[in-house]
């Protein structure tokens, strides 16, 4: 591993075609980052963590597509495994909405949540399109993968990449990783694996993901939004406020119409004919009201 230099963009290339689902990445991540994890649960496939959250910064997904009858070789896509992680998006939805400025881009171009600045509003959870961030119940702040910020500062690669036995998780400079990813996908296509594709390696998804993937199926099979659905929260700012503005104008107009109509209303006593709500007479002309009107000047 060459020297890790501040000012350069670092990230992961996760090649799902060679993931074997061993979860060494999950264990290494928890060990280094002192994450307690949750009670294991026995979910689909060999999944016992469920998803990414405050305690799981790496999560190996298992997708069982094994057909009832063997029809062909499967070409590596009947058992899909992917070690999921924060994508360290170039256009990060979490960072966009964060009201406290707790989410920053580091000198390694990663997206980092400052635990001492975050106040636990959870707007980033609502925004992250990848279900990455979780709230820590003990500390009250939100947490996610830091790209092992502390390790990078100490010139060490992230723990998950270090532990991965198949090099499914590769760490390095993003530009270099993109080149090797392109070579890998070209090799797979040449071998007839036509479904292999890169996700997030170019800028079509959130301006590029610093943690990008080689997938063996559609992005949605791995719970990743496709290009059309990879959209930023701010897309709704202008239409949302415009809708509210038009409603506000109509609301004011409605109030003015009602006030004009009220000008044509019958005398108060008539308006409350049949008894005022609390059984008193129509009361605009009560002594109390008169006194207040006088006080009004």
């Amino acid at each position, binding site marked *: 591993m060459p020297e890790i230099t501040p000012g350069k963009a670092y990230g992961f290339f996760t090649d799902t075609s060679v993931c074997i689902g061993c979860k060494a990445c999950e264990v290494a991540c928890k060990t280094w980052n002192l994450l307690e994890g949750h009670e294991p649960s026995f979910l689909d496939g060999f999944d016992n963590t469920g*998803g990414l*959250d405050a305690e799981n910064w790496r999560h190996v997904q298992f997708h069982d597509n094994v057909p009832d009858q063997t029809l062909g070789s499967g070409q590596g896509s009947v058992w899909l495994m992917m070690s999921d992680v924060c994508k360290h998006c170039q256009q990060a939805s979490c960072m*966009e*909405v*964060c*009201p*406290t*400025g*707790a989410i920053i881009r580091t000198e390694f171009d990663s997206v980092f949540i*400052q635990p001492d600045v975050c*106040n*636990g*509003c*959870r*707007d980033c959870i*609502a925004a*992250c399109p990848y279900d990455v961030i*979780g*709230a820590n119940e003990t500390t*009250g702040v939100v947490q996610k993968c830091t790209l092992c910020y502390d390790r990078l500062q100490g010139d060490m690669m992230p723990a998950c990449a270090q532990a991965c036995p198949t090099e499914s998780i590769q760490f390095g400079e993003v530009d270099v990783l993109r080149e090797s990813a392109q070579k890998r996908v070209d090799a797979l296509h040449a071998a007839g694996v036509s479904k292999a594709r890169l996700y997030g390696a170019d800028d079509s998804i959130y301006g590029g993901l610093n943690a990008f993937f080689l997938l063996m199926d559609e992005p*949605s099979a791995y*719970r990743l*939004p496709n290009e059309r*659905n990879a959209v930023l*929260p701010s897309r*709704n*700012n202008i239409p*949302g*406020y415009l*809708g*509210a503005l038009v*409603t*506000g104008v109509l*609301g*004011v107009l*409605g*109030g*003015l*119409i009602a*006030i004009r*109509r*009220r000008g*044509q*209303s019958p005398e*108060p006593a008539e*308006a*409350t004919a*049949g008894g005022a*709500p*609390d059984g*008193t007479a*129509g009361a*605009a002309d*009560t002594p109390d*009201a008169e006194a*207040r*009107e006088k*006080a*009004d*000047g």
Partner: protein
Amino acid sequence: MAEHFVAPPDWLWYILFYFFLAGLSGGSYTIATLLRLRGAPEDAPLSRLGYYAAWPPLLICPILLILDLGTPLRFWHMIWNLTPGDAGLNFKYWSPMSLGVWALIVYSGIATVSFAETLARDGKLRMGLTDWLVRVMDGLLGKVFAVVGMVFALFIAGYTGVLLAVSNQPVWSDTWALGGLFLASGLSGSAALLMFLTRYRPEARASFGMLAVSERLYALLEGALIVVFVLTLLWAGTQGLVFGFPWLLLWIVVLAGLLPGLRGLVVHRLSPTGEAVVAPVAVPLLVLAGVLALRGAIIFSIQV
């Protein structure tokens, strides 16, 4: 069809009641200001009632927002960024939560001044400054102040919907109608709330007709925005999440809350007499239940 793979932020009860109270405060302030600008003496009691109604929710709103935070004592991080090397005021106009915090602070100040002024006019607050305040507010400055306050009030009633939309959550981010919808429902709820409160301020009943007519118009506006909301969700294909069981029950309450206004519109059109005078308690409470149910259905359906 829109695809979403997000986690819910767990904005639940505190946020529900914040949205509800923000809508009522903003709507009440707006109605109060419209009446004040018209300047008819017979509308003054209702205008003052509106300013009274707008204030107490603002005591509760910050508490709800603070309690909803994971670390409540860090609420002030919303306004002050502590990032080393980048410390300073936090103002992100593209983040509705950041914008909303500032708007709430400004609006709370304005509503507090209006509240104090109203107390002074009613002779319930006598301090050195109050006479001066009333005198100043009687002039053009008072009108400008009230209009600025109304702009913030409308913002506070509506931005909560935009806050939900500016996310990647299903339903919330699949529509642009939530800001308008929450605002319309806040206005309709405020008209209903003031109708209810006229029970305790009889002199305000002179303007009851105005409330009845505005409630009808706001119910129409809200109904139209619910239609827009449904259409946008149909386009995204996520309508099943928010209109499925048990949320349908809440939508029934929402529709029930619209009925008095819509019925009034059909039967009485814009005539300032109406059934609201005949059923003074049930009608406002039903409308208010609808306002709460609307927010409940939208907030809870995608999170629980």
